[in-house]
């Protein structure tokens, strides 16, 4: 039909909803996530996240691995904070075996997990900047992250898949002069926060793009089971490190930052504040580092008694839980991972509705998902 004919027939007046695929190959989905968007013009009327592109079946693989071997697999869930994954698996198995790791191991675990939280939030900070259109913060964030990875490399031998926190303790004690290096990193890191604020936090364009966007109300957050910085961004003060302390977190003084409105800005702000709190925790843990053993006595072949257990920790992305059943064998009978990213992602279908297409990436980025953990 020529343009005239269309006009005469009035065909141009018929409007249709449009389906738009965001991903699975999209630079801003932070991995292989597909979001099916239903659009009315520029406004989103429905959004459906589709997951599973990175599924590796680790819960099933666990049934064929011994308890220590599973640690290696746990590194690959949330690869930006592998220490947390190691920790939660160890806590679960220790609960089954009723082992208590020595005090020093607790401190080392806290140090590693908190450093990893900083590293993970730095990735968020950098990539969120890119999502909004600011490239420079990314380079700054990765410079600092590199320093943390260097520290991890010295302590565990790897940069991403640490396999450092072990059942009953940790892999090995800190290398000589590591504490000094860690302290100088923390000093360096403290001076960087004002720079981050100048680069991104205080930028009015960034604030305009994030404030009032992707609002998650408290009721919605609880209904969807959202945890971590996303929940605290909505103003709910819930942090497992405070509410159900593990690894002697009750000894450390730190605040739990909470947002007010539950928009992208609040979720961003909470993470920036959390990095500052983590620096404080690591400092306290280094100050109070006890002497002594780093490992409890663990039998060479682990056969936990028949039973089931649930262990959970506050990972950088929310509460990460492990449910495992033992049938008194050296391999778990069943493992389930409560992955915070996966559950946080479900809120996307709620908060995207009514937004403009241009805000989708800002909203998705603010949830801070890791697809390795979403799909497992």
């Amino acid at each position, binding site marked *: 039909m020529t343009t005239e004919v269309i006009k005469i027939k009035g065909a141009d007046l018929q409007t249709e909803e449009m389906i738009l695929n965001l991903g699975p190959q999209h630079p801003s989905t932070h991995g292989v996530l597909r979001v099916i968007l239903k659009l009315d013009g520029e406004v989103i009327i429905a959004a459906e996240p589709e997951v599973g592109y990175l599924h590796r079946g680790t819960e099933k693989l666990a049934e064929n691995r011994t308890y*220590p071997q599973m640690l290696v*697999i746990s590194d690959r869930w949330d690869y930006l904070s592998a220490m947390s994954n190691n920790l939660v698996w160890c806590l679960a198995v220790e609960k089954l075996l009723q082992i208590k790791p020595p005090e020093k191991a607790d401190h080392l675990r806290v140090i590693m997990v908190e450093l990893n939280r900083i590293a993970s939030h730095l990735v968020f900070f950098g990539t969120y900047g890119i999502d909004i259109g600011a490239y420079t913060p990314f380079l700054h964030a990765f410079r600092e992250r590199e320093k943390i990875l260097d520290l991890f490399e010295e302590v565990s031998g790897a940069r991403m*898949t640490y396999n450092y926190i072990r059942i009953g303790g940790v892999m090995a004690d800190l290398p000589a002069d590591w504490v000094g290096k860690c302290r100088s990193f923390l000093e360096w890191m403290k001076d960087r926060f004002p720079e981050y604020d*100048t680069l991104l936090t205080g930028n009015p*364009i960034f604030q305009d793009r994030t404030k009032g966007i992707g609002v998650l109300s408290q009721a919605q957050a609880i209904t969807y089971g959202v945890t971590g910085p996303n929940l605290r961004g909505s103003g709910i003060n819930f942090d497992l490190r405070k509410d159900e302390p593990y690894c002697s977190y009750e000894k450390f003084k730190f605040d739990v930052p909470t947002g007010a409105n539950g928009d992208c800005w609040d979720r961003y702000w909470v993470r920036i504040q959390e990095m500052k709190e983590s620096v404080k925790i690591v400092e306290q843990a280094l100050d109070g580092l006890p002497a002594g053993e780093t490992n409890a006595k663990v039998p060479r072949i682990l056969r936990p008694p028949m039973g089931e257990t649930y262990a959970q920790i506050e990972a950088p992305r929310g509460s990460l839980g492990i449910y495992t059943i033992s049938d008194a064998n050296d391999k778990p009978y069943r493992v389930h991972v409560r992955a915070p990213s996966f559950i946080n992602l479900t809120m996307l279908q709620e908060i995207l509705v009514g937004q403009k297409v241009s805000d989708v990436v800002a909203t998705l980025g603010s949830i801070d998902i890791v697809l390795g953990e979403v799909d497992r």
Partner: protein
Amino acid sequence: MIGYFTNIYKVSAALLEGMWVTFKWMFRPSMTVQYPHEKLTPPERFRGTLVFDKDSCTACNLCVKACPTACITLEPYVDPATNKRLAKINWYQIDFGKCNYCRLCEEACPTKPVKSVRHSHGYEWAMTDRKEMNVKWVRP
């Protein structure tokens, strides 16, 4: 109207402040290591490629059992005269395509003082074919 201009002013001021941070970093030493030309020394505990000592290995199979991805295979040496299994290997093979570089095999290995299978500091390890990833050590 006034709001419009104050907005422009605020944004430009914030941009300039941001640029100032970038500008300050421009004159500090570079953080990037120019990889093929410069190389960092890996730390002591670095988990690089695995090396194997075919003479000290006792063919005890502990590393095979410890490995989470079953990438180690070995065949113990059998004395042809007595038909008895000796504490030596015939061959030992690691499939580096499957290896996680996790150190579980090294930790399980009982040989002292040096572990028969252990991580080296090597990290430049590229193959063009999957078959090459099966590295085999044969004891003559």
